C-alpha cells in the first residue's frame, strides 16, 4: 500500500516551525553548538505544565501538536517516536542530585521524566490517546525505526493517521562529552561555510519533528513516502552503491529517475567521504543537496531531511541554500534522502510528489 505524509512540523536550528516561509531567512551560527529556534510553547502546552517540562519534552509535544494541527487531525491512530538519548536533561539532573546529595532527599520529577518514552507518553496524555504508543532508541536510526514501525502498522491496517517523529536535545553535559569524544570541530565555525572547510568533526545540534502518516490519498497530502530502508555496517562503498541501486530497483527506478538527492553531509572528513564518492559515481548525473549545515548534526537529524523533502514536493520549490552546486533546478517529483550515522547505520528514504 502507499504511505502518504499528510502533514509535518519541525523545530530545528533554523526557522522551520509555524508560518515562517520556507528556509528564506537562514540563521548563521559561529559555533560548534546550534540552538533550537523555540516557538512560543504557551500556544501548545498548558503554562502550568511547561515549567516542569524539559526542553526535549516541550519541543516534542509542540511539534506533535503543530503537526496534528497542520493535518487537521485531532486524534492520531498511533504515536511513535525515535530518540537516541531520550531525556538527557532530566537524566543528568537526577544523576547530579544522586551524586551531590549522596542519594538523600531526591525529588522524583526528573526521574519520572527521564524515561525514553516520556515524549510519546506526554503526547498521549495530552490528547487522551489510548492507541498504540511506542518509542525506538536505536542510535542514528532511531527516527527511521519509528518510521518503519509506522509503515508496518499502515500495511497491517492496524491504524491510520499515525503520528511519528524524532526528538533530541543537546545539553551542556552531552555537548562537553561529545566534544571530548571528538565529534565536533575544535574551533567555532560558521555553519554556512561548514562544507568549505572539511576537517575532523561536525557541529552539534538538536530538534524535534513529527509527521502524520496516512494510507489515504488526498491532494492535501504533502508527499508520498514511497520507500524506506536501513542497513548496518556495509562492507565498502561498492556494497553501499549496490544497496542503493537495489533499493531504487524495488520501485522500478534508477538513479537517473531521481530529481534530487539529499545527502547527510556534515562537514566531517570521514563522514563525508561516501557522499563525495557517490556524487561522482552513482549520483554523478543527479542534482544533490545538503542540509546539515542548516540543521546541524544530531541522532535524529534525518527528521529535518524528511521535513525538507516533504516541503519541497508540496511547495514545488527548492531552497537555493541546500544545493550542492548552485544551479537552479526544476520542481522535483522524486527525492532520495541518503543519510548515515558514523559510517555504521545507513538509511534511504524515497519521497515522491503526490
Amino acid at each position, binding site marked *: 500500500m502507499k504511505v502518504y505524509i499528510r502533514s509535518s512540523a519541525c523545530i530545528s536550528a533554523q526557522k522551520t516551525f509555524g508560518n515562517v516561509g520556507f528556509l528564506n531567512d537562514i540563521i548563521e551560527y559561529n559555533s560548534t553548538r546550534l540552538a533550537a529556534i523555540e516557538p512560543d510553547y504557551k500556544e501548545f502546552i498548558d503554562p502550568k505544565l511547561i515549567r516542569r517540562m524539559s526542553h526535549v519534552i516541550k519541543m516534542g509535544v509542540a511539534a506533535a501538536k503543530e503537526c496534528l494541527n497542520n493535518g487537521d487531525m485531532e486524534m492520531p491512530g498511533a*504515536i511513535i517516536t525515535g530518540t*537516541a*538519548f*531520550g531525556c538527557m536533561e532530566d*537524566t*543528568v539532573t*537526577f*544523576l*547530579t542530585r*544522586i*551524586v*551531590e546529595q*549522596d*542519594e*538523600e532527599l*531526591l*525529588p*522524583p520529577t526528573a*526521574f*519520572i*521524566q*527521564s*524515561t*525514553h*518514552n*516520556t515524549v*510519546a*507518553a*506526554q503526547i*498521549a*496524555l495530552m*490528547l*487522551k*490517546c*489510548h*492507541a*498504540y*504508543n*511506542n*518509542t*525506538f*532508541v*536505536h*542510535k542514528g*536510526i*532511531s527516527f527511521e*525505526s519509528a518510521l*518503519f*514501525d509506522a509503515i*508496518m502498522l499502515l*500495511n*497491517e491496517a492496524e491504524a491510520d493517521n499515525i503520528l511519528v517523529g524524532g526528538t533530541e536535545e543537546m545539553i551542556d*553535559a552531552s555537548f*562537553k*562529552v561529545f566534544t*571530548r*569524544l571528538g565529534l565536533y570541530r575544535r574551533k567555532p565555525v560558521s555553519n554556512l561555510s561548514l562544507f568549505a572547510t572539511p576537517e575532523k568533526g561536525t557541529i552539534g545540534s538538536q530538534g524535534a519533528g513529527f509527521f502524520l502518516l496516512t494510507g489515504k490519498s488526498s491532494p492535501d497530502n504533502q508527499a508520498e513516502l514511497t520507500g524506506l530502508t536501513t542497513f*548496518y*555496517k556495509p562492507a565498502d562503498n561498492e556494497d553501499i552503491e549496490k544497496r542503493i541501486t537495489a533499493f531504487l530497483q524495488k520501485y522500478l527506478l534508477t538513479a537517473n529517475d531521481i530529481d534530487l538527492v539529499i545527502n547527510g553531509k556534515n562537514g566531517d572528513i570521514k563522514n563525508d567521504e561516501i557522499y563525495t564518492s557517490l556524487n561522482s559515481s552513482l549520483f554523478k548525473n543527479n542534482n544533490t543537496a545538503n542540509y546539515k549545515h542548516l540543521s546541524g548534526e544530531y541522532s535524529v537529524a534525518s527528521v529535518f531531511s524528511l521535513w525538507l523533502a516533504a516541503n519541497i514536493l508540496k511547495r514545488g520549490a527548492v531552497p537555493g541554500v541546500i544545493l550542492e552546486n548552485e544551479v537552479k533546478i526544476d520542481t522535483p517529483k522524486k527525492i532520495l534522502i541518503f543519510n548515515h550515522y558514523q559510517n555504521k547505520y545507513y538509511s534511504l528514504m524515497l519521497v515522491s510528489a503526490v
Partner: protein
Amino acid sequence: MEQSVYIAGVGVISGIGNNVAEHLAAFERGEPGMADITLFKSIHQYDRPVAEVKLTDDELIAHTGLSIHNSRTALLSLVAAKEALADAGISNFKELRTGFVSANTVGGMDKSEGFFIDFLADNSKGKLKNVFDHECGSMTETVADQLGISDFMTTISTACSSSANAIFYGARLIKNDILDVVIAGGADALTKFTLNGFNTLMILDKDLCKPFDEHREGLNLGEGAGYVVLVSDKVAQMLKKPVYCTLSGYNNSNDAYHQTASSPDGTGSYLAMKKALKKSGLKPSDIDYINLHGTGTPNNDSAEGTAVKRLFQPDFPPMSSTKSFTGHTLGASGGVEAVFSVLAIRHGLIYPNLRFETQMHEVPFEPETKFQKGKDIKHVMSNSFGFGGNCTSLIFSAV
C-alpha cells in the same frame, strides 16, 4: 491470511538463575532471588532488597567474552540471547534473514554513573570509555554483533513494557515478511539511578514484595534479561525439534492518565488485554494462566486487578506475579516473563505468587500460591505495563 509466528527458543537470566533450567528449579523450590545490594555502594544497601543476578561483572565477562567496558546490561543481554539462539537450534541461521530486537531502559547507566562522579567534579575528567557508546541502542548493537546478526536490529524503550513491545515488534517483522528469524526481548542491569528513582517515588518495599496482596507495600527491583527466538512458518518446519508455541495475540495500548501512575480502573491494561485477546481470536475463558505485571505497588496491582476483574469476571484463570521471585527487572521484565509464559505452556506450569496472604479488597480473586506442573496449559497471557501509560499484553498459545 496472516502467517503464524512461532517461539523456537528461549533464554533467561535473573536473580533466581543464570539459565532456563536454573529458573525452573528455583520456581519448584519456591526460592526468590532478593537479598541486600552488593553491586554498588548505596545508602540503601541494607534496607531495599533487590534481586541481583548472582554473577559479578567479571564472571559475566569471563562467560561472554565481552570486555570490561561493556555495560552489565549488555553482558546480561548476551547471556540470555545466546541461550535462546542455541536453544532454537536453527542450523541454517546464517542463510536466513535475521534480526535482533532488544529493549532496555537505562542503557549502560551502570558505567555512566561512575563516569559522572568524576565528570561532575571536573568536566575534563571521567573515563570516556565509561560513557561513550552506552546509550540504549549500543546494548543491542554489542549483542547483535556477537550473535552475528546484521540484517536488522533496533531497540525499544517504553519503560517497563519495553521488551514485551520488542517481542511483538519482532513477530510483526516476520508477519510482514521482512525477516525469517527474530531474537526479541530485553535486558536491564540494576543501577543506582533506577534504585534511587523508584525510591523517590516511595514504591520500593523495605521487605520482600507481596504482589496482589491487600497489604502490599511496593516493589523490589531486579535485573536480568529474557529473549525468545521467533520464527516464521517456513523456518519452524525446518527445525529438528518441535516449537514451543505461537505468539497468538498482542496489543499495545496507552493508559493516557498520568506519567507514572495507572488509572484507578486500569483503562490501559484493560484495553491491552482485551485487544490482545481479540487479535488472538480467543475468549477470556480460553486463557489458562495469566502472568501478571504484578509489581507489588499498591497502585499497579489495584489497577491491573480491576482491569482483570472487568475483563474476566465471573471466571478467573489461575494467575500470579513471578516478580515475587525475580523482582521487577524493568525493561527486561516483558522478556523474562515471556520466557516464563512459554515454559508454562511447554511444561504445564503454574508459578506461585510468593508471600501472598490476604486477598485485595477490590477484586474477587486470589493469585496462585503453589507451584503446579503437568497442567494442561494452552493459552497464557503475559502483562507488562510501564511509565508513560505504556500497557502491553502478549498471548502465547500451544500448537
